[in-house]
Every structure is written in C-alpha cells, then in structure tokens.
C-alpha cells in the first residue's frame, strides 16, 4: 500500500472518531446541566469550562465568544469552522483524506463519509444544532457507528483496514483519557460534598460519555464510586471504549501490519505500544491514584502521541491532509 494512502486512511479514521467523541462529550454535558437543580450562573459557566480545556482550545474560544455558556460551547464544538477540532472541521478533514484514498476504501464507506459531511454542511444541521443539539449529536455518533460497521463489513481486513483501526483506536484512547480528565477539572457546585449526590451524577456522566454506564453497572452492581469508574474506564480488558482495550487492539493491528510476533517488536512504534500495553495490563487503580489521576492521564496522552509519530515515521513518509494533529 502507498505510504501516502496509509497515512490518509489513518487520519480519516482518527478524524471521524474525534468528531464522534466531541459529540459524546458535548451531549453528556448537556444532559448533566439538566440534572443540576437551581444552578447559579457561576455553576453553569463552570460546567462548560472544562470542555473547552479538554479540547485545549481556551484561547481560540475566548477570541470567538464572550463567555463559555452553553450555546457558545455547543456552536464551538459542533459547527465552528475556525475551530480545527469542531465536528465540522473533523468531518471535512476526514472526507478530504477519504477522497485521496477513495479507490482503496469501499464505495459504501466513501458514500457514508460523504453523507455525514454533506449533513454537517447543510442548513438542516445548522437548524438542528440550534433547536435540538441532542439530536444533532446523536446523529453524528450514529453516523460514525454506521461508518465503522460499513468498514468492517465491506472492506478487506488487510493492511488498509489495520491502518484505519489504528487511527480509530489511538484517537479513542486519547479521547477517553480526556473525557475522564474532564471530571478532574469540574468543580463541585458550592455546598456540594465529594461523594455526594452531584458528585455521583458527574461520575455517572463520565460513564455515559463512553457509553459505559450499563456495562459498568453489570460489573459493579449499584455503586458509582470514583476510583471504580476510573478503574473501569482505564483498565477494563473487554470494554470497547476503555483505554486498555483500545491500546490492546491497535497494538495487535501494528503487529499484523509488520507480521512480527506480538511479544516482539519490529519497529519503534511497536516497542512503545507494547510497553504501554503491558503497563496497562499490570497497573492497579491504587497505583494510578497514588501517581495522581490527572498526571497519569496526561502521561498516557503523551505516550499516544509518541506512538503515533513513530508509526508515521515507520510507514507514512509523506503526510497528506494532516493539517491539525491530535495534541
């Protein structure tokens, strides 16, 4: 496969996953607001602030909007063209990358990306964001799921498919760590206690962002405790949006591409990913909290960036439409 094409498939997939995750974060935050009884204006602002921070676009946001209130944040993450990580921008870049590889992906995949892109560009989308952002985010998430399903069902599970998987799972691991980190930034409204009602609701919302609440409940019956939520989201071996699961899967994809055995490594990307993988296999939630949850998540994000660059150095000599990076 052409190096340029491998690179484009990787980025196409990352951008779709990123659009989906942005929709998840914004959607859950919208729901969270509804759970606050008699919120003060300060509470409301505090609620949205962490989302901007998690996207690491504070300055850009401040230059575009007066204050981080709901409507502004929703516009910023959904359709703001100036935000390189908005859903609009992500899907535009995903489509550009798909266009340069459209003879490699199946026509069904291409049509699905194109449909999603045409949707976010349409007046209908603009109207939907205004009138019912919840529905807009649902459509983006469902659109991304449909794309993944089409990909698995219509594309040969070979090298190209593996690059698509690596892109998706690397991005997912990164986004999941950011979603968990959002909770770190959220301050409890004045008068609320740690472990109190609002605190629990906030941790539940973290699970919901990852579609993980139901899965969590089946394992830890009843209680939503912070350390258990973190444990589940970081280290669960079989939940498809956990960090460990994502890392396991892209590590396997890397080995399928090079043909090297899973316990060995053929290049720097495999060495780094194998190391991260074994760390996640053996780390306990106690270790993580001792290290500091925020610090731990940051360190994971850094290591994901290293793996991504090593992978590109190994396989993708020249970059296609990678105008924005994840980090």
């Amino acid at each position, binding site marked *: 496969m*052409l190096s340029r094409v491998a690179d484009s498939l990787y980025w196409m997939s990352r951008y779709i996953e990123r659009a989906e995750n942005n929709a998840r974060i914004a959607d859950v935050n919208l729901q969270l607001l509804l759970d606050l009884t008699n919120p003060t204006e300060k509470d409301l602002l505090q609620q949205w602030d962490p989302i901007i921070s998690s996207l690491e676009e504070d300055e850009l946001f401040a230059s575009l909007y007066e204050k981080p209130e709901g409507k502004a944040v929703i516009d910023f993450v959904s359709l703001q063209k100036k935000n390189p990580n908005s859903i609009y921008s992500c899907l535009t870049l995903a489509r550009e990358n798909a266009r340069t590889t459209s003879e490699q992906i199946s026509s069904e995949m291409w049509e699905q990306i194109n449909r999603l892109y045409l949707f976010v560009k349409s007046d209908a989308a603009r109207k939907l964001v205004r009138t019912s952002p919840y529905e807009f985010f649902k459509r983006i998430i469902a659109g991304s799921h449909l794309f993944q399903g089409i990909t698995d069902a219509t594309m040969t599970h070979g090298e190209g498919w593996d690059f698509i998987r690596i892109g998706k799972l690397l991005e997912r691991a990164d986004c999941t760590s950011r979603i968990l980190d959002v909770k770190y930034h959220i301050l409890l409204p004045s008068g609320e206690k740690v472990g109190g009602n609002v605190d629990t609701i906030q941790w539940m919302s973290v699970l919901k962002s990852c579609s993980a609440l139901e899965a969590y409940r089946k394992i830890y019956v009843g209680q939503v405790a912070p350390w258990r939520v973190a444990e589940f989201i970081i280290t669960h071996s079989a939940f498809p949006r956990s960090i460990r699961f994502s890392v396991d899967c892209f590590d396997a994809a890397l080995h399928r591409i090079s043909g090297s055995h899973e316990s060995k490594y053929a290049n720097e990307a495999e060495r780094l990913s194998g190391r991260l993988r074994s760390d996640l296999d053996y780390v306990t939630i106690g270790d993580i909290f001792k290290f500091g949850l925020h610090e731990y998540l940051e360190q994971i994000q850094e290591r994901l960036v290293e793996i991504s660059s090593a992978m590109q150095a190994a396989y993708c000599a020249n970059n296609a439409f990678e105008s924005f990076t994840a980090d």
Partner: protein
Amino acid sequence: MGDFFSDYQVGDFFDEMFSGPGVVRPHYSKLFARFKEMEREEFERKRALAASTFLTQGVTFTVYNDDQGTERIFPFDLVPRIIPAEEWDLVERGLVQRITALNLFLHDIYHTQNILRDGVIPKQIVWEATHFRPEFMQFDVPRNIYIHICGTDLIRDKDGTYLVLEDNARCPSGVSYVIENRQTMKRAFPSLLGQFRVRAVEDYSQELLNVLRHIAPGGKTEPTVVLLTPGVYNSAYFEHSFLARSMGIEIVEGRDLVARDGRVFMRTTKGLKPVDVIYRRINDDFLDPQVFRKDSGLGVPGLVEAYRDGNVSLANSIGTGIADDKAVYHFVPKMIRYYLGEDPILPNVSTYLATEKEDLSYILEHIPELVIKAVNESGGYGMLIGPQATKAECERFRDKVKKNPRNYIAQPVVALSRAPAFCDNDMQGRHVDLRPFVLYGEKVTIIPGGLTRVALRAGSLVVNSSQGGGSKDTWVLEAENGAAAVE
C-alpha cells in the same frame, strides 16, 4: 398525465427525437410512450433521486472561478439520447478508421516524416506545433501505439450527418460519467431500459486495463499498472479515482513515485515497489521537471529517462498532442487517404487555417459568421462564436489571429443537432454533442455510445461542463436481427 412534449418546439434544427413537429422518430417511440403515461410528480421524484445519487457518491467536478474551488454536480438530464444500431455502426467504423490513421501519422511524424516529404501536410504545420516533441524523434513506443485512449467529439449537422469536431488525444476525460449516468438511469427507469435493448457500457474499465497491460515493457505478463493523477484538487479527480478503483489499480501522485537507475518505483509501506505501466492523467508538460516544465511539482524527476529506456510505459505516449492540434485536425481526412487509401467515413467540419493566405483573408473578413478556435485549447476556452459575440470581442480576435496565425483556425457555425432536455419545468430542445471513447490496444475497442453533452442554456452551442453544460445517458441499441428501426 405529465404532458411533457405537448409544447415541444423542434425548431430549425436536426432533432434527435422528432423528425418534425409531433412526429417521433421510431427508435424513440417507446420512450415517448413512457413519458406520455408519466405524472410530473413521478418525474420529479426520479430527478431528485438522480441528483442525490450523484451528490452522495461525490460524482462532482471542481470549478475554480473564485479563490475557493467549489464542487458541483455535473448536471444530468434524465431524457436519454438514443442511437439506433446502424447509425452507431457507421460511427464506430469511422472512429476505428480515424484512430488507425492518427496512430500511423504519429509514427510517421516521429520517424521518417513521409507525409511531410510528400507534401500532404505543410512542414511548418507540424514543426511549429506547440505539442510536437522533436526530442522523441526515432523513439519507438511499446507495441507501436501512440494514442491508447482517445475521446473524439462528434456533432451532427442540420441533415443529421455525423461530423468530427475535434480529437482529444492527450488525456480525454468524461468516461466515468458515461458509466455513472447509466447506473443512475438503471435506478430511475429500470423497466424502460429493459424494454429497449441497450448495449452495456460497464466493461470499459476492464477493456482499459487490458490496453494498459498490453503495453507493459518487454511484454511482461503481470505488470504493475498505476494511474498518475495531478491530485485531489484536479477537476477530474473523481474520474481518476473512479477508474483506478474499477480497475483495481493504485492511484498515485507524483510525490508517490520515484525514479532510480532508469526505473520507476512507488513508495509503499513496505518500501519501494517497481511500476511498469503508468496511465497518466497529467499532460506532457508536467510529467518530468528534468525534461519539461522545471516548475512542475506534479511530475516525477527521471520519469522520462525511464520511459526512454523502455522500463516504464506511458498511456498515452509522449507527443500525441500534435495529433489533436486543431490545425493538424484539418489534415486528418488527407491522412486517412494517404495512409489507408480509404475515403473518410466521418467527415470533418470544414476548417480555415489562418496560416493559409486565402483562408486568412476569408477569416478576417467573416469573423462575425465564424467560430474561431485557438489550436491548443480545449474545454470551450480560447474560442469565439462569431454570431453570438459582441463587436469588441470580434475585433479582439481579429487582432489575435493577425498576430499569431499559426495559433488559430476558423470554422463555419454548425447548427448542432438538438435533443429534448428538461429545462425550466418543460421539455425543450437543447444542442448536444457526443464524445465516444476509443481504446487502442491489441485491437480497437469503443464502448457503445459515449458521453452526450448537452448545452443546457437556451440557444447555447457550448456543451462544456465549465460553461453550463450537462450530460445525458447515451443508449446504443442492439441490432434487431438485421431489421433495425430504419428511419
């Protein structure tokens, strides 16, 4: 019912569907009957279906008339153009004859130049042509084929006679629309297509791949074939990716290729992989900055050397632009007589060469009645349609022609045939042309029909997509046991 044709004006033109007011040509009668029973709403549904199909498939081209290229759908008209079997038979024979002569001409011109020595074509016509490549004199192209893919534009005059308007012997485009248009019609009019016996067009990509494999260096049996595109911003990018996909070959950009030791390789995730045949959709000028334009970022340095060494084959060959020079066009009927000893089956549109003294003075005196064309332009650019031009425009062209006669030819305005198209909520006669695609490999293959382009603006004679043109599906009918519907 929809009442689509009750106000239809045949006008003073050859109409593809009607031989006179209200008189339907026999090969269109089933179509006419189908439209008679169709409600407007049903037609609107089909139109919406067709438009959304093109949009989601990304069957678009890019227009650069502002800073930002905008993607547009090539407008598609749902009324097919129908060509009866015996009419197509004539066209096909004419095209085979023409491509054969053009290839013999190219071989001759790049070797002994007998046709110039015998005075059939004036020497300076060839030597002064922009696209003549004297640096490839005495170079032997694989299998002796120069033009592997040719798009020849045909028009019909007032009597319905097919005429050749121009040959496109470099990188003709449009064939992807032929195939996509048919797919769309199959969805929109499944039963109608069943009633007619329309010849299939879907095997074009397979035939093209056969041609490309046929010219592999040293007769290699499993060659690596790639399609070289200028990139995603090229207006024909959809077509490039469509063809690569349907042939199952890689689509590459210049930066994906590298030439080393007289060989061409592509950069893959597993290292460099040798390439044998390149279907290039880039003009000669941009192929190799070491040989042609130094500023070309689209090409591959060293590609031409590898081509000369016979290690990589190109389709089309370098230097075919001389064959679609509009001044050389004038001499194609003479070429056919010279090389084949036959009368041309498809006549040319009569042409005045500004390089000929008598022709030049005729041109200068009659500009408002003529079509003036720059010899190397295509896509409807660089031309003047006298009867539709302002006085100032005519004057501007008069100066241009005087200043650089080799660069211009003139033709009388041909009243292109018309076919019904749905415009402004009704069926109206619009001018059409036809671009069949000719493939030259082990044998000459032509997909039945080709791209019918239609000038959707009322009265317009320009069918190019960049100038408000659209397209129609083209149906070539199977012969009905020799007893075809004769008009």
